[in-house]
């Protein structure tokens, strides 16, 4: 039954409200970053890109970005590798305690991150490991690798194991099957898992807070500056971080599109 005109209007307004609620705070951060004044007040009296120029010139900001990026990139690569083999182990093979293991592996997702962070910090201390951005990589992995595994596993469960068996039956070795069948078919899942892993690591605060020690990631610095020593660099870096994430998402779409185009043109040859 088609909705009546009034229902449609109500739904439309409701939709706008939800979107407004989601994005307006971000917009206000955007305004704060382009205001010349030190503290945000509406209407903005004078617009300026001063804070962006300062951010780009700052050595601290460069270090922060570098630390965050290093952690996120390493976490992404390791998560995708762990997720690939983990998902195959769950979806392809029957082994004892498989379902129990599956639940145990996914359990960290349900822990509050602060509790997980604290636990890891205590553990690093008891092992005599000095917390740094490298321990943050481990902390992020504990939480992010299970999520990535879940994403790839959904894809792995949905494809017919007979495809791999058929390839083997026609003479393909295990590495060939992996290259020709398994990897191309899991690729969409691997790309999504990588994307999620990067974004979750890039924006993570609670785990980083406990695990980075003397090093600092971007979200940690933003929080510290909010608590004491606010400057418009805070919203500026916030916006730069969001834009970087957006670029990453666009890049992922572009790669997926490119892969599809190359495959289609290969098929058409």
């Amino acid at each position: 039954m088609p909705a009546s005109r009034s229902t449609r209007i109500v739904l439309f307004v409701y939709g706008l409200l939800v979107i407004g609620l989601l994005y307006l705070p971000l917009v206000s951060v955007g305004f704060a970053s382009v205001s010349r004044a030190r503290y945000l007040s509406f209407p903005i009296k004078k617009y300026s890109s001063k804070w962006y120029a300062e951010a780009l010139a700052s050595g601290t900001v460069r270090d922060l970005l570098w630390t965050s990026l290093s952690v996120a990139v390493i976490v992404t690569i390791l998560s995708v590798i762990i997720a690939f083999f983990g998902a195959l182990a769950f979806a392809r093979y029957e082994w004892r305690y498989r379902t129990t293991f599956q639940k145990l592996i996914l359990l960290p997702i349900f822990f509050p991150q602060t509790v997980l962070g604290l636990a890891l910090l205590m553990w690093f201390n008891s092992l005599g490991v000095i917390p740094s951005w490298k321990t943050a990589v481990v902390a992020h992995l504990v939480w992010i690798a299970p999520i990535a595994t879940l994403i790839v596993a959904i894809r792995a469960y949905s494809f017919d194991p007979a495809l791999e068996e058929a390839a083997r039956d026609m003479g393909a070795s295990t590495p060939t099957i992996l290259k020709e069948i398994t990897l191309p078919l899991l690729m969409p899942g691997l790309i999504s898992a990588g994307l999620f892993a990067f974004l979750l690591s890039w924006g993570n605060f609670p785990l980083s807070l406990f695990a980075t020690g003397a090093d600092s990631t971007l979200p940690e610095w933003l929080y510290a500056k909010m608590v004491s020593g606010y400057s418009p660099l805070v919203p500026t870096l916030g916006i730069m971080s969001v834009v970087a994430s957006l670029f990453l998402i666009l890049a992922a779409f572009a790669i997926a599109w490119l892969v599809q185009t190359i495959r289609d043109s290969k098929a058409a040859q």
Partner: protein
Amino acid sequence: MVSSDPILRLEGVVKKFGAFTALHGVDLEIREGEFFTIVGPSGSGKSTMIRLLVGMDEVTDGAIWLRDQRIEAMPANLRPTCMVFQSLALFPHMSVGQNIEFPLKLRKVASSARKERALELLDLLRLPRDYYDKRISQCSGGEKQRVALARALAFDPEILFFDEPLSALDYRLRKTLEKELKNLHQRTGKTFVYITHSLEEAMVMSDRIAIMKAGHFEQIAVADEIYGRPVSRFVAEFMGEVNLFEVTSRDGTTLESPCLTVKSGTTNESLPAGGNGLLMVRPEFIRFCGEDESPDYRIKGRLLEEYALGSRIQYEVETETGQILTVEKLRQDRASSGDIGSEVMLGFDAARTHLIKDT
């Protein structure tokens, strides 16, 4: 051409899954060039059997010989055999052409030669040549079947295995493809080993049929033999509608059942005195008799039901002793039966009966 030499031989093959035994020491010989079908209900072990034959599972005990080479321990990717899967297992990320060329690519055949062979196979399977560039998702069910077959033939296997590849198709398409498969078998001269739960499929295509039950072969023979001279109640009933009279041999000369007495020796086998057996008559060999007819055996009964089965009509008749018999007539021979509930006289000849000793 079917040769008398076996291409594949199984000796005492056992397959266990934990405590469950799926195959109980199976022996089998498949001849070079034959269309051999294994039929059985679900759970009879036929899928387990084919997985062992192609090398996707390992035997627990016993030997599999391909000509004079022992292959039961050889992994699937080293065996010169190929299977068409129930799900067809076409690679969704490759085009039709790439699918067909896959086994050739694995053998490092040059791309021009691969394409040439793929196009030849498209011709052989009556698919238009421009399907070479199509995506698998653009093909219909029947076309996918043909692509899967083309890919298996590109492999050029010694034996081509089929694991119920037609089971997901609608009736008409299945009938067409059954004939095409039979035809393809004749044209390629390859050995086909086919697994199905459909008796009709087996009857249409096969040179020989093996009936499987609970992990062993109940009977292996040509279709007519299995239909007309089954070795057990299971085979008789599995091969379609059947009337079975439980008979006992009184003194070795006559077989008696509550509604029938048969002279021993008029059927294929005889029973020793006191022995039990089943006398089988297929529904199409029983007829409604008039006064002037004199079949070897007559049974009085009452017509219970009449079912229209397309080209045939099936009747249920209850004998005076309460046994329900099934009678089938071609539609054009329908008139002679009478009304539901009326008394009828059934008749059949001794030559049309078969005695199953093993009950």
